[in-house]
């Protein structure tokens, strides 16, 4: 976690509509954080401070809530967010091999982002597409019945499209 003084300050005005709707509604912290993440792509520290100030709570509590839930990110994500399902069905059908293939090919850890900022990789709880297992989502698109070879083809195609090869 960076100190709030590091990096370029976030444009807090973007959050004003969200705060005006929810700041005074008790129990809305998670909703506000979700909206903030939609706006900024992740939760910058200065944004969390701002939310704490505006909702009359403490930064420690905002931090505590934000770090409790897996949905929240504290670093910008890559252009392509790969979410690999590790639900039971996907697990039984070999999601670990897919994870290995992705990590080896992109040199990225679970939760990390590639150096070029193109891909973020995250192993997630059940996506609910169990009959297509193993499954992953890249941004909005779902890919099912994966094999290590198939996954590499998909990633190579994206890289080619982005001129990253």
């Amino acid at each position, binding site marked *: 976690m960076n100190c709030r003084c590091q990096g370029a300050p976030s444009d807090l005005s973007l959050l004003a509509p969200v705060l005006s709707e929810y700041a005074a509604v*008790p*129990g*809305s*912290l*998670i*909703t506000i*954080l*979700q909206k903030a993440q939609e706006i900024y792509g992740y939760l910058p520290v200065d944004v969390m401070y701002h939310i704490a100030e505006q909702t009359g709570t403490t930064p420690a509590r905002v931090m*505590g*809530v934000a770090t*409790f*839930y*897996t*949905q*929240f990110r504290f670093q910008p994500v890559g252009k392509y967010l790969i979410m690999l399902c*590790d*639900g*039971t*069905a996907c*697990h*039984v*059908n070999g999601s670990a*091999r897919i994870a290995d293939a992705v990590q080896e090919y992109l040199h990225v850890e679970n939760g990390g982002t590639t150096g070029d900022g193109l891909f973020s990789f995250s192993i*997630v*709880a*059940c*996506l*609910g*597409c*169990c*009959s*297509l*297992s193993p*499954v992953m989502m890249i941004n909005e698109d*779902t890919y*099912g019945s994966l094999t*290590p070879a198939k996954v590499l083809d998909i990633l190579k195609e994206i890289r080619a499209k982005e001129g990253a090869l």
Partner: protein
Amino acid sequence: MSIRIAVGKGSCGIAAGAAKVSEALAPLLAGSGIPLGTVGCIGMCWLEPIVDLYDGDALKARLVQVKPEDAPRIADAAKNGDFSSISDLIITDDDAAFLQKQTRIALRNCGIIDPDSIESAKAAGAYTAISHILRDGVTPEDVIACIKISGLAGRGGAGFPTWFKWNAARQSPGEEKYLICNADEGDPGAFMDRAVIESDPHTLIEGMLIGAYAIGAQEAIVYVRAEYPLAIKRLERAIGEARAAGYIGKNIMDTDFSCEFRIKAGAGAFVCGEETALIESLQGQRGMPRLKPPFPAAAGYWYKPSNINNVETYANVAWILNNGGEAFAAMGTEDSKGTKVFALTGKIRRGGLVEIPMGMTLRDVIFDIGGGIRGGKAFKAVQMGGPSGGCIPAELLDTVIDYKKLAATGAIMGSGGMVVMDESTCMVSMAKFFLDFTAKESCGKCIHCRIGTKRLQEILTRIVEGRGREGDIELLEELCNAVRDGALCGLGQTAPNPVLSTLRYFRDEFEAHITEKRCPAHTCTDLLHYEIHADKCRGCTACARKCPVQAISGTVKQPHVIDQSKCIRCGQCIATCKFDAITVE
């Protein structure tokens, strides 16, 4: 004939390409007068995308595994009424039997109505129960009595009698009460709640309205997983339509009954499926369970009397009110009434959603409905209840589906995940998988769960990695019992179940891993040893070319060898070899 087309567009169908099929059909049908509609998920996930051709309410043809390129001939068939050109797409009788053996109550409208249309839902009977209650002066006590007669029990996992919770919340003093729907379906391998919301949101809304009326709540809140964006979207729309139609808001149907609806998106925490953790999360806090008592019926959301049920439970309510508690209670066993939805996944031939009356056997569901194991392998076990449940081995396949009978096996009914495993599934590794999950999902509050599940996971990890020690089985058992006894909430108390149940039925697999450093299912890579048999190897070089780490060497037409120090045990060589020259031990 007035044909209309409906494309099944649940998340699963969309993932399989249903949206693309729909997009391909739309321009072809433009101007033809043939309506192109959307329905939710029928539950036959292995056949997605599915396109249904209706004549009025009558299903004329169900087309399966449809591709966008099939659109022209489907459009033509719909226009001219001649289905012979698409006969290859029509579902086989064998597959169609999947539905016929079910009894659908919670899923009664799923895959049939348009989830984005309240009219479609009303045509299927939505809001008749609440209308009857409010119009004909059915009292909350009557409603609770009806639910009591039905024997409906919570479908989220614990199986607690629904009427009891409703009654407790009703009896709790206080004007301000809340009715909450737990749609934080977190069990990996269960997706019926998502299917209901995506396919038939009004049934959920109506069930919740009846519940709110029964306990005296003025506000109903649906806590949905953030991973279910489509469900949230459809539910939002449905709530809007219901409000416009006068079913939500102040003085519903001109009575004293008022009820507001709200959706709250979860943010990713399995523990929020535990009701007190869910309440904490609804209040914008870390989802850490509270001590019980007090129970939510006495002090729940904002410490006011609250009732929490899951989606499937509420989805049964309107049907029970319409058909009477006795009709529901007529189905099932002495101990468990009505139907239950299961998500059949894993190594099953027909994976999808199944709703059956309680009292069927596991064999009925897995073999008769699910079609048995995919790929001709042998059935090994079925995992039920996810991270809180356990596995049931082949010899207990004739166990009757019933809360008590399942609990006696060491598994639980749970929310209805049924993950089928074949002989290639390592049970130790399965136990580890679930402990990886619970350790990651532990909220960290109590010692037994925070450290206990972590230590269980570490012990299991060393066993599957070939570093198991003598005494590890006993250590696992001791720790499992301690965590079960000592953890604060249901997540922690049930976390040891997958370990205890696999130890109960597959102890020999643990022993093989620990003492012989051998994985009988050949899946724990650290314990595998691949070998090329010189007598069978023809030196075709196929395996050497396929090997991702160049661990295989040899000259053409000469037997090859595997360098064990390089081998990563990926198994690609075995898959490549045409001469069965490679074995794994």
